[in-house]
């Protein structure tokens, strides 16, 4: 069966420090992968999506970047974190059309 792993679960980082969040998918190949951010515990904003290795599409200009070095690995990064980068980050992959997306358990990032 397909599973999605996301880590770490929580992270506290100082302003100006780098960031790397990792997401991996098992049990599928060539998945579409997505990074969402949920700010203030509510709305979900699509940040990046990827349809294949090395293919990244950015939805909004920001302080973050994404990479897909392997088929089932999706990484969210920043060179220098801002306070406004705090939030709950969710990785997702698209299965068949009947279930939309499957989400990881999320990473709570607090920038201090």
């Amino acid at each position: 069966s397909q599973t999605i792993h996301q880590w770490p679960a929580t992270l506290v980082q100082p302003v100006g420090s780098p960031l790397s969040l990792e997401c991996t998918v098992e049990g599928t190949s060539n998945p579409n992968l997505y990074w969402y951010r949920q700010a203030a515990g509510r709305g979900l904003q699509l940040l990046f999506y990827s349809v294949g290795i090395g293919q990244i599409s950015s939805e909004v200009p920001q302080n973050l970047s994404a990479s897909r070095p392997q088929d089932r690995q999706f990484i969210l990064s920043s060179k220098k974190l801002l306070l406004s980068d705090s939030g709950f980050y969710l990785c997702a992959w698209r299965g068949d059309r009947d279930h939309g997306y499957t989400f990881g358990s999320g990473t709570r990032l607090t920038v201090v």
Partner: protein
Amino acid sequence: AQSVAQPEDQVNVAEGNPLTVKCTYSVSGNPYLFWYVQYPNRGLQFLLKYITGDNLVKGSYGFEAEFNKSQTSFHLKKPSALVSDSALYFCAVRTPNYGGATNKLIFGTGTLLAVQP
């Protein structure tokens, strides 16, 4: 552009009463509509979807939703609410996959369901 609206920030209902969480959408072409639930500090869990066919779709945990094309709505319902249903609920629409575009899920702003014992 595709969009989803959830007009209620919060819905309060007593346990045992029926509940409705509202969702309206705007999409070109035939919509693919979804409902997800999120418990605190967790990822989203799929509840149900409408792709085609019967307008009333049944999903997990006794939830159902009715697709109404004329009103462009996809309201989530449950005949008898449980305290354990208290969570954040998201409606979503999937953008069409044509013209080389990758389809994406566009989410509403979420509705917090609070079920009182």
